[in-house]
């Protein structure tokens, strides 16, 4: 009882939860791409959903409630449902038997390598310690930052999405004679 009391009052619960969610995120992420028990694409998709949910748990621990909610709403709720939709419409057996191709492996290694490089660069410049949670569920502050300090990246991402959208419409449209 005393130990639990101490844990609660010292904020140790959050530390424990951090490890739980971090472990869950990593475990589920591994199971998405290398599940030893099944190569079923639906299983992979469901583990990706779990990864996203445990990541939003990590956001919650950082007091970023808005990001956590949006993470679940957009990725788990909309994007992954579309993924499942497509997977269910495709022939699953073909997908389960597919072998690893050289080009795919090379492209994968390059992209993972560059992401790792970006991470290391970002982590090297960051100082360890507790950052003050500035965006404690405050959508106002987040919106203000997006439209003042980070306008350019924000607009570029918007344009990127627009281009993707137009591309999809063009690709899926029937040819007009």
């Amino acid at each position, binding site marked *: 009882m005393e130990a639990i009391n101490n844990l*609660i009052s010292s904020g140790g619960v959050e530390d424990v939860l951090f490890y739980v969610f971090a472990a869950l995120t990593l475990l589920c992420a591994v199971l998405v791409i290398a599940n030893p028990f099944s190569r079923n694409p639906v299983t992979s998709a469901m583990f990706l959903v779990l990864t996203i949910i445990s990541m939003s748990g990590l956001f919650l621990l950082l007091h970023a409630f808005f990001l956590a909610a949006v993470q679940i709403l957009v990725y788990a709720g909309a994007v992954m449902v579309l993924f499942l939709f497509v997977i269910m419409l495709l022939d699953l057996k073909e997908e389960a038997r597919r072998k690893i191709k050289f080009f795919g492996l090379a492209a994968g290694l390059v992209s993972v390598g560059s992401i790792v490089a970006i991470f290391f660069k970002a982590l090297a410049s960051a100082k360890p310690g507790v950052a003050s949670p500035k965006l404690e569920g405050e959508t106002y502050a987040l919106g203000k930052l997006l439209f003042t300090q980070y306008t350019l990246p924000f607009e570029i991402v918007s344009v990127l999405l627009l281009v993707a959208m137009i591309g999809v419409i063009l690709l899926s449209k029937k040819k007009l004679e």
Partner: protein
Amino acid sequence: MDWNFIIFSLVKLAIIVGVVQGLVAYSVLAERKISAWIQDRVGPNRCAPPFAKYIPVLGPLLTRWGMFQPLADGLKFMFKEDFTPAGVKKIYFFLAPAVAVIPAMLTVAVIPFGSVMGNQKMVLADLNVGILYTFGIVSMGVYGIVLAGYAANSKYPMFGGIRSSAQMISYEISMGMSVIPVLLIVGNLNLSHIIGWQATNGWMVLYSPISFIIFMVASFAETNRTPFDLPEAETELVGGYHTEYGSMKFALFFLAEYSNMVSSSAMMVTLFFGGWTLPFWGLDHPANSIGMGIAHILVFMAKMLFFMVVFIWVRWMFPRFRYDQLMDLGWRRFLPLALVNILITALWLWMRS
């Protein structure tokens, strides 16, 4: 965080879950009774435990109203054989009902069902991003249905699952867009603040009626209720996604549907009809006594029950949409309407400021 907080939260949690479950059980009864009245029948009026006939007046009356029917239904579901058809994908077959129920139960956590009692706020989790939380959780509900359709490994459930994933994504967008004017007007995502704003300025439905209409229709689609119950259209798809399910697993899908009904009614009341407030009898400010606190909860419940009756009434009064009509309504009517609504609200707020 301290023990006081944990204990009060647990008590509130237990009460909320209990009340929602009770509401679910009796809304099934209400569904059967109202459908009976609409179709000029009597509805369930026989079911009674053996001791009911020894209670004078009240016993026969409760039996006539079918008050014991939910109990009998529940027992029947429990004791039926839990049959697993051959060829189903076992893990998903067992997982799907649970995945359907959990989000349905989680939504009510952020809804303020009363003002204050003593020094306890009558809401389980007073989140700053309450609305986004609700939408996030509601959007998880589709997995139960999709997985059920996939796990059954047969044609019609598959169709049901695919239909429902397309339908829910389409209407989620309209639903989310329809709420944005409310957020613009209030300027806060916290559901308690939205109710507080409505207490001083009047109900939101007066400011943004289009939002309310879109939200209501979209929530019919999100809960898979008629006129949008295409995922389980029994005339085309046998039973849709739950064709292969029986006994308690089937009951869990039922539970999820009715819990979703409860939580969307609660959301409609909270967002558009002032939550626990009433504009008269001094019920529009947080309670300063236990009696007032209880009155607020009763007001909230009454408003919520009204919308649940609307849900049931609509189911028995209107025919089902065709699938292309459903998509047309969602994407070509509601989405543009919701966008225009946002624009008009933003312009109106800009002119006023």
